């Protein structure tokens, strides 16, 4: 412990400060507070995992036991089969894949024009995109819902896919990245009379893998968690996504035979697992870009 402190040369406190015992106590306190913070972040999820293996009566049993009496993984399979959950999982995957494609292609193209092509008058469009940066989609939900009805897209995944193609936040992330690419590349492409669209797919896309990855991951998590529009659009039970199904089960708790709060918690656990999976694979990209996206304009 001491060794690594002695080599700390940057930041507010450095090795010079840590020569004093007082600062070493401060440092232990820093670590302690951070441990408590991590515990606060993780314990509710741990509670969820443990509780989802409990019987309904165990949830409020006195005295309280943190661990379930038995870890019965049959319960997972039972809940899964009872609700035929494959269906909802598959639906969600369809929504997520379409959303990722739309998100990358449409926001990417728009950002490419904003950052590089810059035709006359693009600034007006950019300002309009920026103005809607923070407007939540559900703020004008009635007109949007009506549009979707008029286009005959109720019980269709099409609006859920394309909605992710109009996201100001992703446009800005793409734009910032494209602007950092070396200018000489596009000029060379222009000399070769390479079309704009071809420049995009042949030059920009291969050079932009990191940012495409980041936007794809963000879209993946957002589409997986998306709720309100899917809830309004997907009325047919066989079309529903995991989140819509879980909300419906939650709202109608007690009306489905044999479905109690313990089983709902199990479903929540199931719904979180893919996200944990994605997070562990892409943790670097996710934590790295979570910071970058919010600050730069």
């Amino acid at each position, binding site marked *: 412990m001491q060794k690594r402190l002695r080599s700390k040369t940057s930041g*507010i406190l450095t090795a010079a400060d840590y020569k004093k015992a007082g600062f070493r106590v401060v440092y232990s306190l820093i670590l302690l507070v951070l441990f408590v913070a991590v515990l606060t972040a993780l314990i509710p999820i741990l509670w969820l995992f443990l509780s989802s293996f409990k019987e309904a009566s165990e949830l409020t049993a006195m005295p309280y036991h943190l661990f379930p009496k038995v870890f019965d993984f049959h319960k997972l399979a039972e809940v899964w089969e009872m609700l035929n959950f494959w269906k909802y999982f598959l639906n969600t995957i369809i929504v997520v894949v379409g959303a990722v494609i739309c998100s990358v292609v449409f926001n990417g193209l728009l950002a490419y024009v904003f950052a590089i092509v810059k035709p006359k008058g693009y600034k007006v469009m950019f300002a309009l995109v920026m103005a809607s940066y923070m407007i939540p989609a559900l703020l004008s939900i009635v007109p949007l819902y009506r549009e979707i009805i008029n286009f005959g897209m109720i019980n269709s995944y099409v609006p859920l896919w394309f909605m992710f193609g109009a996201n100001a936040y992703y446009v800005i992330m793409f734009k910032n990245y494209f602007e950092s690419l070396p200018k000489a590349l596009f000029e060379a492409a222009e000399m070769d009379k390479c079309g704009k669209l071809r420049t995009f797919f042949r030059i920009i896309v291969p050079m932009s893998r990191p940012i495409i990855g980041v936007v794809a991951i963000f879209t993946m998590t957002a589409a997986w968690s998306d709720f309100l529009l899917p809830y309004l659009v997907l009325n047919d039970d066989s079309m529903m996504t995991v989140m819509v199904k879980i909300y419906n089960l939650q709202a109608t708790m007690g009306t489905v035979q044999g479905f109690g709060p313990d089983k709902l918690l199990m479903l929540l656990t199931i719904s979180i697992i893919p996200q944990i999976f994605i997070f562990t694979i892409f943790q670097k990209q996710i934590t790295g870009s979570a910071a970058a996206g919010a600050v730069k304009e």
Partner: protein
Amino acid sequence: MKKANALPEDRSSLSYKAKRLFKRNWSGWLLMLPGLLLFLFFVWAPLAENVLLSFSETKGFEAVGFNNFENYVRVFQDPMFTKALLNTFKYIFWSIIIGFLLPIALGLLLSEAVHFKSFFRLGIYFPSIVSGMAVVIMWSYLFDPNPGAVLNQLLTALGLPVSTFLSDPDLTIPLIVVTMTWRGAGGTVLVYLSALQNIDNSQYEAARMDGAGALARIWHVTLPHIRQTIRMLFILQIISVFQVFYEPLVMTSGGPDGASVSLLLLSYQYAFQSFDAGASAATGVILAVIIIALTIVYLRLSTPKKNTVSRKWRKYAKKTAQ
């Protein structure tokens, strides 16, 4: 023959200019078109229609005639709207108390940690990856008012009286803010962390040379450097308060008796529970105006001003030198 007949094009003519303008720009606009159409369909048209709807008499979701400010008047006379508006201030108050300083402090501590750094970073960020709906349902079970539920048994064990949690009108908003903070703080911490890591170490060195203690270093070097980030995230947080929706929808349906209803939830309830599209649109427009105004402030702040930090620092250095 043909060549002789062709007139040399007049380069200053209007039609030539228009042609050139078109030739240079059409492909760019063509590429923008799909994206712009999507923005039109999903964002701009609904917003504009919402404005129209807010000035219309509505039947179901259709406008049947112009009715001036009647929707707005009706909304302002609705006690539920007054409650939602007041609640917004309560949400802002609690989110500042609970959720504003915490990420700054954690970011500072995290930037100083040498041990377990990536463990801390991942652990603190972890709740942000769980979907909002799952988080909200999970916390509504944690806040189960049953005396045998986990938190109440914990309170009992600590010798405190049991709580009804979300059903208690004084607690419902703070607890919703706790839920929001639990999920959102990790992302904010990372933003602060990256701002802190961008501070030039030579400034700390210089401060140390001048004999500045740890607190003086934080006050005179660290804080001025992240002041811009703090300001921006402050505005961002206030904007996010105006977007509160899922938490009251799932955890309380806006209750007890409107104690946690937010403007966005109210707009949704007007539309899909009382089928009053006019009132819903009016509420939506009021919200949109507030959010756009705040967004403009945010964007102003996020265009960096140059040298403010170093000027501050130079001033401080001069003062200590004397």
